[in-house]
C-alpha cells in the first residue's frame, strides 16, 4: 500500500477508535473509560496546537504549558465569577463554554504574541530557554496570586455549560472535546496545505532561503506561534472543565515537556501524530500509573527508543516518511 493510503487508514483508525471506544464505554456504563478518552482528546488537542509551532515551524517551544494553563484559568475564573457574581477587572463572569472558549483562545494568543515577539528573535537552545523562562514566570505569578487559589488552584464547582448538552455527563463532554479535536486537526491540515504553511515549513528547513526570496520569517513564525498557542489554550479550558479544577500545575514546565513528548512519540509535524502520542502518554499514565509512581520512567524508555530507532514517531513507523511535494 502506498504511504499516503496507509496514513489515511491510520488516521481513520485513530479518529474512529477515539470515538468508538468511549461510545462502547457509554453503553457498557464505564464513565471512567470515557474520562480517560476525554483526557486523550484534550491532550491531543493541546499537542495539535504545539504541532503547528514545533512540527510545521520547527519552533521548539518549551513553554507551551503556559497557554494550556492560561486557558484553564480563563475557564476557572469565569466560572468562579459566574458563581459568585463578582467581576474580573470589571468584566462579569460567564459559565457558557461558547463565551469561555474564545476568551481562552484570545488570552493565550495575546500572551503568545508578547512571548513570541521576544523569543522568536532567537533560535535553537536560546529559543527553548526563553520560552521556558517566560512560562515559569507566569507559573510563579499564578501560584502567588491568592485571589485565584494560589498554589491550591481554582476549583470549578459546576462545569461550564454548552447549549443542548449536559456537560456534567461524561459522554456529552467527551463528544464536545472530540469534535473540537477534529476541527483543530482540520485547521492544521488547511494551514499545512496553504501558502502560509508552505512558507512556515520552508522556514523550518532553511530560513535564509525564505528570507532571500523575500518572505520575512519573523512575521510568519509569530503568526504560527500565536495560532499554535490559541489551540493549546482552548485545550486548557477543556481540561479545567474536565477535571473541574484550574491548576497551576497545568502551567508547570513538566507539562510543556509532556506536550513535546506527545509530539515526538506521535510523529513531529504529522496530522494525527498528536492523537497517537496522546493515546500512548495517557495510556501509560492510566495503565502503569496505577502500578507504580515511576510510570514516567517507562514512558521515558519508550521515548528514548522512539528517538533512537523510530525518528518520525508512530505515524512514520506505520505510514512511512512524509513527502512534502
Amino acid at each position, binding site marked *: 500500500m502506498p504511504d499516503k493510503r496507509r496514513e489515511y487508514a491510520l488516521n481513520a483508525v485513530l479518529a474512529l477508535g477515539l470515538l468508538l471506544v468511549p461510545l462502547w464505554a457509554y453503553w457498557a456504563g464505564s464513565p471512567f473509560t470515557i474520562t480517560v478518552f476525554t483526557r486523550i482528546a484534550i491532550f491531543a488537542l493541546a499537542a495539535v496546537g504545539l504541532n503547528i509551532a514545533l512540527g510545521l515551524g520547527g519552533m521548539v517551544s518549551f513553554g507551551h504549558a503556559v497557554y494550556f494553563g492560561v486557558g484553564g484559568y480563563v475557564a476557572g475564573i469565569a466560572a468562579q465569577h459566574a458563581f459568585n457574581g463578582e467581576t474580573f477587572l470589571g468584566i462579569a463572569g460567564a459559565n457558557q463554554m461558547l463565551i469561555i472558549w474564545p476568551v481562552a483562545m484570545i488570552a493565550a494568543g495575546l500572551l503568545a504574541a508578547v512571548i513570541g515577539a521576544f523569543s522568536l528573535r532567537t533560535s535553537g537552545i536560546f529559543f527553548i530557554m526563553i520560552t521556558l523562562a517566560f512560562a515559569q514566570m507566569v507559573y510563579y505569578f499564578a501560584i502567588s496570586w491568592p485571589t485565584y487559589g494560589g498554589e491550591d488552584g481554582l476549583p470549578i464547582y459546576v462545569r461550564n455549560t454548552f447549549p443542548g448538552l449536559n456537560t456534567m455527563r461524561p459522554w456529552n463532554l467527551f463528544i464536545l472535546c472530540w469534535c473540537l479535536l477534529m476541527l483543530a486537526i482540520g485547521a492544521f491540515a*488547511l*494551514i499545512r*496545505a*496553504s*501558502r*502560509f*504553511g*508552505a*512558507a512556515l*515549513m*520552508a522556514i523550518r*528547513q*532553511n530560513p*535564509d*532561503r*525564505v*528570507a*532571500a*526570496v*523575500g*518572505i*520575512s*520569517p519573523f*512575521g*510568519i513564525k509569530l*503568526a504560527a506561534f500565536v495560532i499554535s498557542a490559541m489551540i493549546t489554550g482552548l485545550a486548557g479550558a477543556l481540561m479545567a472543565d474536565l477535571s473541574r479544577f484550574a491548576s497551576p500545575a497545568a502551567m508547570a514546565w513538566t507539562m510543556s515537556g509532556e506536550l513535546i513528548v506527545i509530539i515526538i512519540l506521535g510523529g513531529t509535524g504529522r496530522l494525527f501524530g498528536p492523537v497517537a502520542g496522546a493515546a500512548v502518554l495517557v495510556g501509560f499514565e492510566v495503565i502503569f500509573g496505577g502500578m507504580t509512581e515511576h510510570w514516567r520512567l517507562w514512558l521515558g524508555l519508550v521515548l528514548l527508543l522512539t528517538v533512537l530507532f523510530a525518528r518520525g514517531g508512530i505515524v512514520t513507523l506505520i505510514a512511512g516518511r512524509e*513527502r*512534502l*511535494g
Partner: protein
Amino acid sequence: MVDPVLSLSHLSKSFGALKATDDVSLTLMPGEIHALIGPNGAGKSTLIGQISGRIAPDAGTITFKGRDITGLSVAQRARLGLGRSFQISSLIPEYSARRNVMLGLQARQGHSFRFLKPVMHDRRLRDEAEAILAKVGLAGRASVPSAELSHGERRLLEIAVALALEPACFLLDEPMAGMGAEGVGALVDFLRGLKAQAPILLIEHDMDAVFALADRLSVLVYGRIIASGSVEEIRNDPAVREAYLGDSE
C-alpha cells in the same frame, strides 16, 4: 547618462583584524553582466552578503534602483527586486524542485498570509513553476526533492528560484561551481540571454565563462578592487596578471 541599477559606495567590512571588504565601490548598469573575480578568500561572497543584507557593512552605502537600502533586511531587499543565488546551494531540502520555485513565485506575489487554499492544487502557480524549470533544463526533475537532486541540478534550481522572483538584478555567486563542461556551456548561453531581462553581478572562477559573458570585470584581491574595466583591459592589466591571472595564463 543612465543610472546604475545597483551601486556600492565605499563599502567596508572587517572580521576582526581581517579586512574582507576594503573601501569597495562598484556599479551595475542596466543590461550588463558585471563579473567580479578574485582569488579564494578575496571577499567576493562577503560582498554579495552585504548587498543581499545578510551581512551588515561597517561603513559605506548600497543604493538599489535609486534607493538607499543599506538598512533594509534580507527579505525587504528581495522584495525590492534583488534576486540571488548562493555559492553553496541553499534550497528547501524536503521540497521538490517545483515547490522550491513555487515558493519563489508565492513570495513575488506577496501572498504568504493565506490560510485556506491548498497551494499545491494551484494550477497556475504549478504551471508557471514548471515553465521556469523548463527554461533552466529541469523540466523532467520537477517532482524530485531538492535534497535528492545532483549537485549540478541544484545549481540550476538556484537560478530557477531567482528567476521566479523576476528580480531587477541578479546576484549570482559562482553559479557554475562544480558543474561539468557541458553544463557550463549551457549556462553561459542561458545567462547571455538573461541579462536582457535584468543585469547580473556575476561571481565566477571559471575564466572562460567569465570572459565569454562579462561586459565589465572587476578584480577583487584582499577585499580591494585592484582593477575594473572591459575584458580586454583586465586581460592586459599588469597588476591583475601579477596578482591573480598570473601563472594560469
